[in-house]
């Protein structure tokens, strides 16, 4: 009787010993040498895994940062320069200056400005609506209003305004991860340089139709008249396919273009009221 117990104990001990040796050898053979700095950098990143940096998650960006020689093309829009500075200390590397950005909606097609011609009762999804037809209005470029961008936002920085039927982007919460830019099938949302005191000045329209057609579709559309291009002293405004574009990196916020726009397609947001033509929509959108 006791011999059976003894044999069992010896057999199990031997088995355990052999297994531990095998496990040890394998563990040594396939050892992954992890740079401890990857963990440190991951700690410094926000950890939301939004994908705004272009990598699958925060750890993937951390690995890429540790691997690379400099910060060229590696930037966390959520953490911004703060996080980059701290990471630079860990990696003993010179931080690069990166401009913080913010998302803006380049459409002002509220029911007031842009008449609704049809009803849409298909699946409430912008991509589905976009594949079916031009939109409920005569503008084939504007917001479809199903809120794909709001759903894509991981930072709770967007909501649909029930009155304007357009998404609203919160300046405080937006981290410019770019998820909404990718989600929008019409490419209405643009990432622009974040200006002093969150001031913004941009063309709130992406209609590339000729002036007569776009004006008919929406009262606040860009008609491609080119007045803003002429008046801009910094050559920040360009005109392509009947559509003006203000380059946020060249713009000096002189505010000469907005009053010049005959349709009010250029919005100035966050400025103190200057003259009587002070964009009522802009205040609503704030």
């Amino acid at each position: 009787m006791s011999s059976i117990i003894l044999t069992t104990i010896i057999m199990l001990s031997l088995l355990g010993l052999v297994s531990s040796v095998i496990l040890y050898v394998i563990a040594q053979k396939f050892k992954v040498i992890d740079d401890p700095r990857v963990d440190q950098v991951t700690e410094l990143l926000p950890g939301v895994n939004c994908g705004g940096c272009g990598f699958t998650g925060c750890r993937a960006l951390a690995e890429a940062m540790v691997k690379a020689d400099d910060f060229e093309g590696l930037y966390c829009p959520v953490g911004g320069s703060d996080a980059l500075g701290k990471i630079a200390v860990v990696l003993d590397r010179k931080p690069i200056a990166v401009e913080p950005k913010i998302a803006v909606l380049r459409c002002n097609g509220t029911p007031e400005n842009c008449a609704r011609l049809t009803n849409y009762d298909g699946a409430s999804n912008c991509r589905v609506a976009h594949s079916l037809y031009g939109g409920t209005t005569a503008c084939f470029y504007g917001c479809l209003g199903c809120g794909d961008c709001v759903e894509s936002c991981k930072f709770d920085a967007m909501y649909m305004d029930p009155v304007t039927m357009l998404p609203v982007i919160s300046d405080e919460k937006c981290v410019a991860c770019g998820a909404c830019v990718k989600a929008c099938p019409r490419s209405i949302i643009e990432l622009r340089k974040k200006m002093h005191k969150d001031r913004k000045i941009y063309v709130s329209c992406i209609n590339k139709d000729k002036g007569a057609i776009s004006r008919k579709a929406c009262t606040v559309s860009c008609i491609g008249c080119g007045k803003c291009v002429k008046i801009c002293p910094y050559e920040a405004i360009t005109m392509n396919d009947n559509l003006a574009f203000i380059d946020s990196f060249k713009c000096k916020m002189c505010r000469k273009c907005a009053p010049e726009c005959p349709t009010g397609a250029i919005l100035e947001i966050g400025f103190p009221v200057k003259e009587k033509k002070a964009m009522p929509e802009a205040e609503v959108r704030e």
Partner: protein
Amino acid sequence: MFKTFPKGGIHPPENKLTSDKPVVDLPLPQIVTVTVSQHIGAHAIPVVAKGDTVSAGQIIAAAKGFVSANIHSPVSGIVSKIEPVVDATGYRQTAIVIEVSGDRWAEGIDLSTALQKEIKLSREEIVARCLECGIVGMGGATFPTHVKMGIPSGKRCDLLIINGVECEPYLTSDHRLMLEKGEEVLTGISALMKALNVNKAVIGIEINKPDAIENLTKLASGFEGITVQPLLVKYPQGGEKQLIKAVCGREVPGGKLPLDVNVVVQNVATAYAVYEAVQKNKPLVERIVTVTGNGLSNPGNFRVRIGTPVSALIEAAGGMPGDTGKVISGGPMMGKALSDINAPVTKGTSGIVLFPERESRRAEITPCIRCTKCTYVCPMGLEPWMLAASSERGMFDRVEKGKVTDCIECGSCAYTCPAKRPLLDYIRLGKSTVTRIIRERNVK
């Protein structure tokens, strides 16, 4: 013995209100709008300019590339403008707008109604004539006919199936055509048979059209190799793959074409267009459109010139009822609601269906209860609930594995769903996205 396809399918109410209404010629409109893309494939390129005088049957936009079709002026008049217009797809595309004056036809077109039975043209000439006359599949998909008839080397065709199923509820344009132009249709089928070098053609007709079956069976005795196959009523029997399975029992594998099982399928309306092109040298400039709906005072079948605004058709059918909620171009199952009723009739417009407001609205969407009704009715053997749910969440790898590219977009799943989920909307989204992903992968 009646046949049908074995897998899935539904039985929506037929509502064939206009099956006993003879085809009426619609008076010429004052302005026609001819879009340059009325077919699958590359846009045609306009060959006329603003201010040109054109006569009916004259080519106004030329096919660009192999899979494309010529477009002819449906009327005589003056080209007033060439500009983008909103068409039945809901998007803008280039269109040639012609102000109608008189009814002058281009030379060389036989306008007599006398039947010409003897086919004088050779095989190659028939295919060339179809290309020249801009013939496309008239069932709705508008695939250029000359492409279908040119059999690539290594492939062989031993059976021509003619689609006279018209499984969509409400529509009766093919039904009327089979009744009124039976011999012309059969002559067109003979021309198609000659072009394809086959000696057997089967016309598939559902048994809810007994008069058409009787008429064509009687007439077909005078044509060699053409038989009529009555089919049980089931939607979507008019789908190419379903029809092949129903008529001859062959199953087209996923991602393959009917030609891979040695079959070519053409619509009866296409056969009629081929007859007119081959025997009368008449290009495809008019078609029969069913205008129907329970609220219409005078629903009917109308022969209209391509480019006529839909509003003119509705006017002819008694005007739009006040409570109309949706105007659908095509059948109620696969058609698309128009965003503008001035959209022009194209080569693929088989019907205009008007729904009153209370019938047109979609029901409230509730969560999927996993009853798998959609799986039972899917004629392609797919799992619509899974495809739709994955597509909604952006999991396109799963959508691709679920063989979304085999979906024929018949809408049986959405029709049968007790939770009223917009299954087809999301499946379409998945299908287009997966098709794009596959294309991008192949380029790499």
